[in-house]
């Protein structure tokens, strides 16, 4: 099986169209997982050079049964037939579609920013390392930067359960509330870097 794909599409099983395209498989897989609380989606490698982030919603799979799924979790589809131009999706208003596509792009941006921030600042991520030791009798509630469950897990939780950008922004603002933090300096640092990545993302 070919593993050398340059682009990956977030494919809606219900609309039978791509809703976003990215070059990063792992970011796309992770976003699909978070967005699965709201829609039935999977990730497909894309061969067609004409498909990009702007026009992807007019393209679908030639054989949509390749993407048929029986469970809610996102999955990578190994497709046989490729993509084709299909025009505007049916049975959904353009307003709703563009609102939802804009939210999906927003989720991608946040996930990318949170991964970069964590990679840059979390230099002693003991929670993840402890998870590798299956029989460990030790536990860590907070990682060394002071977030219960770790920074990324908290951001993921917000994205999984929120329904629109406004709700996400408001929950992220509360998350960066220094009053409640045991490590306000580190929290401030996280917020600064995170917002910087968001601005430039």
């Amino acid at each position, binding site marked *: 099986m070919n593993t050398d794909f340059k682009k990956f599409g977030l494919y809606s*099983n219900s*609309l039978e169209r791509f809703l976003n395209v990215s070059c990063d498989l792992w970011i796309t897989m992770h976003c699909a997982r978070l967005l699965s*609380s*709201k*829609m039935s989606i999977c990730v497909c490698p894309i061969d067609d050079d004409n498909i990009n982030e702007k026009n992807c919603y007019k393209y679908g799979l030639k054989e*949509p049964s390749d993407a*048929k799924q029986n*469970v*809610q*979790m996102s999955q990578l589809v190994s497709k046989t037939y490729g993509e084709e131009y299909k025009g505007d999706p049916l049975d959904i208003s353009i307003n709703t579609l563009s609102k939802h596509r804009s939210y999906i792009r927003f989720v991608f941006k946040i996930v990318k920013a949170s991964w970069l921030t964590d990679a840059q600042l979390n230099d002693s991520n003991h929670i993840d390392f402890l998870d590798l030791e299956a029989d460990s009798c030790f536990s860590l509630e907070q990682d060394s930067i002071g977030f219960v469950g770790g920074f990324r897990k908290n951001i993921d939780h917000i994205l999984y359960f929120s329904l629109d950008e406004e709700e996400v922004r408001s929950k992220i603002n509360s998350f960066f509330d220094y009053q409640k933090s045991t490590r306000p300096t580190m929290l401030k640092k996280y917020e600064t870097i995170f917002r910087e990545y968001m601005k430039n993302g």
Partner: protein
Amino acid sequence: MDNFYFVQTSMYNRSFRSVINPILNDLTDASRFYLNISRAFTFESYIPRAGEWSTPWPVKVDPNYTMPEYNPNFSKTFTDITDQTANIILDSINKTDKQHLVFYSGGIDSTTVLVSLLKNLTISELNKISVCMSADSIIENPNFYLKYIKNKLNVIDSNDHDLKNHSEKNCISIVADLGDGLFGTELGTRMYPQFFSLGKKLGYKTNTLTDLYKNLSNSDYHYSKYKNLIIEYFNSILQSKHTEYDIKDHLFGELYYTKLDNNIKTSTVPINSLHDFFWWIIFNVKFMHCALRPGTIHSTGVDRTDIFTNSMINWYGTRDYQLWSMANNNNGEKIKGTTQHSYKWAAKKYIYEFDKNDWYFSHKIKFASMPLVTGRNWSKKFTELDSFFALTDKYQTLFFGDESVDNYVREQILNYKIDWR
């Protein structure tokens, strides 16, 4: 043998396979067809409520689930009936001290049930019900769980999915298994996305396919216009699942289509469009399967009388829901357009009016979520669940592994005749 209310034979079940293996070389066209139904659709469990439909077994419709007479003037809406059904449950709650358990998967049918109860019952009345669910139900609709169930309703883990236990614990189970029976079947909604690839295989022109596709729920486009596509679709399902598929199996699609066509022609309910055709399968011959499966193939025990007479309420089994289903074909209530998310439109609209979640409304599609829970339960109680054969009209269970049952099954399958063409 008594008459049967429920039969299940599946080539994927070890017990049935071992009964059938000795006769695999002696199959007639009819017995091969019968076994292929279970290969293609996981099991064969058809009991006709209307029209001609022969089976190898003496079957009978449970009087609780007979089909009402078609009434084209039936005017209650889906919302009217769904709200009214909450009051039926309330009556049941008030009449007994039994605990009421709502089986919730997070899918469209069971979410509709919970919405109706949340809309129509008071907080103290809601305290008398419990939601029977698993982690899968949260994953299927996380926002609904967080907003309306978590810390608000009593929750019971459905991992021990056995109505026998619930009836022993003095509970009444409220199940939504007949939701599919009202709206259609995923056999249809899984075909629609493959429409163009099926048609191209058969040499249809794109314009013709586009026209047929756009009109799959139009009563002026009779299902017979789709005959070749349907037959190809049925054959493609069998081919993808039957590891020893050979030329004799190629009759399957046509036999299944003509059997359904004959059933439609001998019943009195108008079946017009392609979506009607698929709906009719589940509303007629598969209705009993959906109605009784929670207490049969997902439960254990020999005597199921208490489950079916005292301990189970089929939310969508009422006469009004059935009359609604017969009077609302091809008007956008069952499927609004052609894509998967527009299926079960009336139920999705009912949920949306309550929770205003436009993601669920715009993108939720029907999943076969039940196998997730039942699959786990299956391995825990493999011996009893795998060997289930039939439920008699006295609510007694027959199991494979009993020599007289095994001999009877082989004999009936070999004597089955093609009597519909």
